[in-house]
């Protein structure tokens, strides 16, 4: 365990979305997007959350900030119960935790000039003096590499990479300690990804930020995260130090995920574990271990009960009956 204090403590977090039409008398079906997640995030670290579509990582991102209501579980931010706060307290806490989204095209209001977009959080929290705010905005824009002279332009006049920088500037303007990044580079061109990833790293060094970095791209996660959690169908199935995860992945899903990544050089030949079938419907997750329907080493006991998190070593846990 790292010696830093936990900035976020999550236990038993669940989010079930009701779906389908409401019929009188019968129980409504739910999509169990997040179904019992517990972990800690430590100050100054970059925790990566990786998983494929439908695993619940984007839902988790929103739950951590209480952007959507929680079905069950607890979230503690720096020791205080996030879910028990009233509106005023929540508003104050929001200054410390921010989010950056995947799509640079829909995360900025197309009808506002970017100067105003970055300025908005300051106004929401009553930072007085427009001259004062302008200085803050200007400094941030320069820091992320956007010329301040362009503050009067609209988002559609910028490229994807530049818009993502604007989103980063907006996230930084209130001096948060925690930033949740939901697939922030997935929609960007490869050469721009590198620019933005470097920016993320530099900002973390300068400002002592804590990141939760969500992605489906393991190479990106490897580059930027020191600790990684792997999600499948609403649960964390493995969580570990980055080096350890890539060197010796414990859970069969993680192994399959790693083996599925394309090689980085044509001469590398990879032994592949190809998973059969598709991701099960989150409305009806498989009984017992959720992965057993596609698992290459599944045994009858795997469908009987859900596996608990087991310690591989002090920094590495995985939820599988067979390790």
């Amino acid at each position: 365990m790292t010696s830093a204090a936990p900035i976020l403590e999550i236990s038993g977090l669940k989010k079930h979305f009701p779906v389908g039409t409401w019929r009188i008398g019968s129980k409504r079906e739910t999509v169990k997007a997040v179904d019992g997640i517990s972990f800690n995030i430590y100050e100054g670290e970059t925790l990566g959350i990786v998983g494929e579509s439908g695993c619940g990582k984007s839902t988790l991102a929103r739950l951590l900030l209480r952007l959507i209501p929680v079905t069950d579980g607890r979230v503690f931010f720096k020791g205080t119960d996030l879910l028990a706060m009233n509106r005023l307290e929540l508003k104050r806490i929001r200054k410390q935790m921010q989010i950056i989204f995947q799509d640079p095209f829909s995360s900025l209001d197309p009808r506002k000039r970017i100067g105003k977009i970055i300025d908005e959080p300051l106004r929401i929290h009553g930072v007085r003096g427009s001259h004062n705010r302008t200085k803050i905005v200007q400094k941030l824009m320069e820091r992320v590499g956007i010329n301040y002279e362009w503050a009067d332009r609209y988002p559609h006049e910028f490229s994807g990479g530049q818009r993502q920088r604007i989103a980063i500037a907006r996230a930084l303007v209130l001096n948060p300690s925690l930033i949740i990044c939901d697939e922030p580079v997935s929609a960007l061109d490869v050469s721009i990804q590198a620019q933005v990833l470097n920016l993320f790293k530099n900002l973390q060094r300068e400002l002592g930020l804590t990141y939760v970095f969500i992605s489906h791209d393991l190479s990106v996660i490897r580059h930027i995260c020191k600790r990684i959690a792997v999600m499948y169908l609403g649960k964390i199935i493995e969580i570990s130090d980055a080096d350890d995860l890539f060197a010796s992945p414990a859970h069969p899903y993680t192994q399959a995920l790693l083996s599925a990544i394309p090689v980085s050089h044509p001469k590398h030949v990879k032994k592949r574990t190809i998973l059969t079938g598709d991701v099960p419907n989150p409305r009806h997750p498989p009984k017992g271990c959720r992965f057993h329907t596609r698992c290459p080493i599944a045994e009858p006991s795997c469908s009987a009960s859900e596996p608990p998190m087991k310690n591989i070593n002090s920094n590495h846990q995985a939820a599988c009956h067979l390790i």
Partner: protein
Amino acid sequence: MNPLQPSPYLLDCQGLSVTFRIDGRDFKAVNNVSFQLARGEVLGVVGESGCGKSMMALAQLNLVPEPGYVSGGRILFQDQDLRAKTERQMQAIRGNRISMIFQEPMTSLNPVFRIGRQVAEVFLKHQNISRKEAGELTLQALEDVGIPAPHKCVNDYPHQLSGGMRQRVMIAMAIGCNPDILIADEATTALDVTIQAQILELMKSIVNRFDMSILFITHDLGLVAELCDRVVVMYAGKIVETATVTDLFDNPVHPYTDRLLKSIPKIDSPVDELTIIPGRVPNLTELARSFCPFEPRCLISSEVCRNVSPELQKAEKDHYVSCHHYGEATS
């Protein structure tokens, strides 16, 4: 070129240009592009958004959307110029001799028709067979692409299938008539990593089983390393480098390719800071015509790069590059 001697290539694209006419001005999305595809070969076309790779692919089958049009060049398929063919003749080729699959399997399939009917349509269009025979071919095709329980699948609607399944159906439709060439335009981009691996394995087996050539368009160099024999790198509508895949990764001579390879985070060799390419990808309206399109972002450019457009020249055996300073970038 001697017209009497047949070309050794299945597809020989010469000097292709695609122009867009917007507001009375012309913009070249594809600028004098030439490449060759041999039988049984997988040729990768790699580049970032706006480089023209998709337009180039669509141009092969004369599917460039308005306001774009093919403005120059020849596309020789089995020694016949596809540009000289009528729409009727092209329809006989599409799906039959040259097929194409796209990125979004969600929108490539018609949501109101069952899978069986959509796949059978391809056979009925190109072959003189009965509905019953088409049905049998459909089941065979679905099995060929690895769909479990084809008998059930033919009665499903597209929305009942997952993304990976839909892409397999698309592939089944594309290879059903055993075409010579399959054009895959970002076919795995929208899929999850584990599903992408399945589709890649499927494509490899298709190449082996049917001796099919694939024109594989992607932005992902990892996929290129996995699947392709040769690679063409495009930037702003032009080809900047073309080589065998091993040569490209071992010895990239164009500054763009070199930096692109270095800017990708790699799982097995993590670095602290990624090499970046300064500036941004130009969009269609910014494309320059008279000098090297990469010059504004190039660290080794010089006066000649601003004034003279570099043409494709031979750097080494089977390795071509269009750069005045090729080879100087790799450090």
